[in-house]
């Protein structure tokens, strides 16, 4: 670790402040990844309008058929948006970061740091993968009274979920050990990893949409009123 840090410090392309910044950012991404992805989720949710993960979503005047139709549309929509976000993030981030690391950018002005930050932020948009893979579908199907289907579905969701987190950790390790010359290789690896993860997510989406066709939607088993209320008769 000491060698890595010394190498980073000696690297004329990695200012100590930048290195510290990288560390903090990556740690933040790993531990608060979900929070940082909120703007993406908010934008996506705003477009798709209803999440089907709150009780109110089940009480609005929609037939089950309409609900399923919207749900399918939403999953497809999110997959498309996720693809655009992730591909553009990889391309743009790769270009700007390599420029930065190869010394074509000599200063540390905010102007050049912004793309790097945004790139990292967009990497984090792999959380979008979760969106594409169908968090909402998971909620929706989780209400099915049939436990077997529920478990089968959740296991599919779970694989992608953990892949995303393994991906974060791998990124963290690679990013720390990165220097100017290996920057490109790192980005290539990261890109490949992201594409593989994303491909799994898309596959899950397809499977999930298929599952939706076969699953009859059951009951809402969400949050019940907490039993904080004292026994009505106890106080007499």
């Amino acid at each position: 670790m000491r060698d890595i840090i010394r190498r980073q410090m000696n690297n004329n392309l990695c200012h100590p402040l930048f290195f510290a910044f990288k560390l903090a950012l990556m740690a933040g991404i790993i531990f608060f990844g979900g929070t940082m992805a909120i703007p993406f989720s908010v934008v996506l949710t705003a477009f798709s309008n209803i999440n089907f993960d709150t009780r109110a979503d089940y009480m609005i005047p929609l037939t089950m058929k309409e609900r399923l139709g919207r749900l399918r549309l939403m999953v497809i929509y999110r997959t498309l948006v996720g693809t655009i976000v992730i591909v553009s993030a990889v391309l743009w981030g790769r270009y700007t970061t390599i420029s930065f690391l190869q010394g074509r950018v000599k200063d540390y002005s905010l102007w050049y740091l912004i793309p790097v930050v945004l790139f990292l932020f967009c990497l984090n948009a792999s959380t979008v993968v979760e969106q594409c893979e169908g968090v909402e579908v998971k909620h929706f199907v989780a209400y099915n009274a049939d436990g077997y289907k529920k478990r089968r579905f959740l296991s599919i969701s779970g694989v992608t979920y953990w892949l995303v987190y393994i991906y974060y950790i791998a990124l963290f390790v690679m990013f720390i050990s990165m220097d100017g010359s290996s920057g490109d290789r790192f980005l290539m690896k990261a890109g490949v990893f992201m594409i593989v993860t994303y491909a799994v997510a898309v596959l899950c989406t397809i499977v999930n949409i298929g599952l939706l066709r076969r699953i009859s939607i059951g009951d809402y088993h969400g949050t019940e009123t907490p039993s904080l209320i004292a026994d009505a008769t106890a106080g007499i």
Partner: protein
Amino acid sequence: MGFICDGITKSYKDFRIEDIRFELPKGYVLGVIGRNGSGKSTLLNALLGLFPGMSGDAAIDGMSLKNSPKEYKEGLAFVLNTTPFSMLDTPKQIGLNYGIYYKSFSMETYCSLLKKYEVPANRWLSSLSEGQLVRQQIAFALAHDAKVLVLDEPAGNLDVAFREEFYRMLRTIVADGERTVICSSHLMEELEQISDYILYLKREGEVSRVRYYGTAEELREQYRIISCSAEAFERLSQAEVASEIVGGRLREGHSEVLVKKEAIEKLGAYLTSEDRESIRYADLKEIMYYLEKGKVTA
């Protein structure tokens, strides 16, 4: 025609509500009572359409939950103890996102009600108080001109001042004779004040059924409380009329029994003149308590 609940049965692994039936005319408030675990929330969730697979049906003005779910839900509003909306939305966003699904929803009315109820329109729900969350739901319910309001323990998180205002509001809502309110609450005294009808769910083992449905007045009319001495209580309990006693509390100094009105005459011979003078109407809380507990020793 009002609201009809037609034989709703909902089963869980170890519990079910069975064959719940009632007809509630327009312009009245129905209070749903029962002990914790008696299925009040299950029934209200069923009425809200959260259990598509249940048996039975419900209808608002002839629009059935099973046959016309859209029209049924259009006429239904909900106010729940825990907000059913996403905590990451603001009240205004909720109006925009959910209002579009209701034909008669008015954003203008919604915003003015939010203002009236002092609910900030542009803050996340997660930053609002429990009382504000309830008030936001009321604003939403009134903004889409619902015919039936389903309220599940709505007042539990309200402060005393707003609770009074809330109950007044409920009376105002039904005053035009067009709307109906179905409300469950553990605050029996308050529920008694506002309810015209009572639906009492009683759980026996794994099954909960309707123990009573009718007007609150009729329910109160059926029972009497006799305050008596401990000796009189013992006397009554051991006499051949003991089966007439619905429930009672034995304690030193002051005991009381709940009896059916018709039983008063039979019990007369066992009561002193003082006991007879103490006979009074039972309130809802006492009726429910003794029906659930039977005879108790305090």
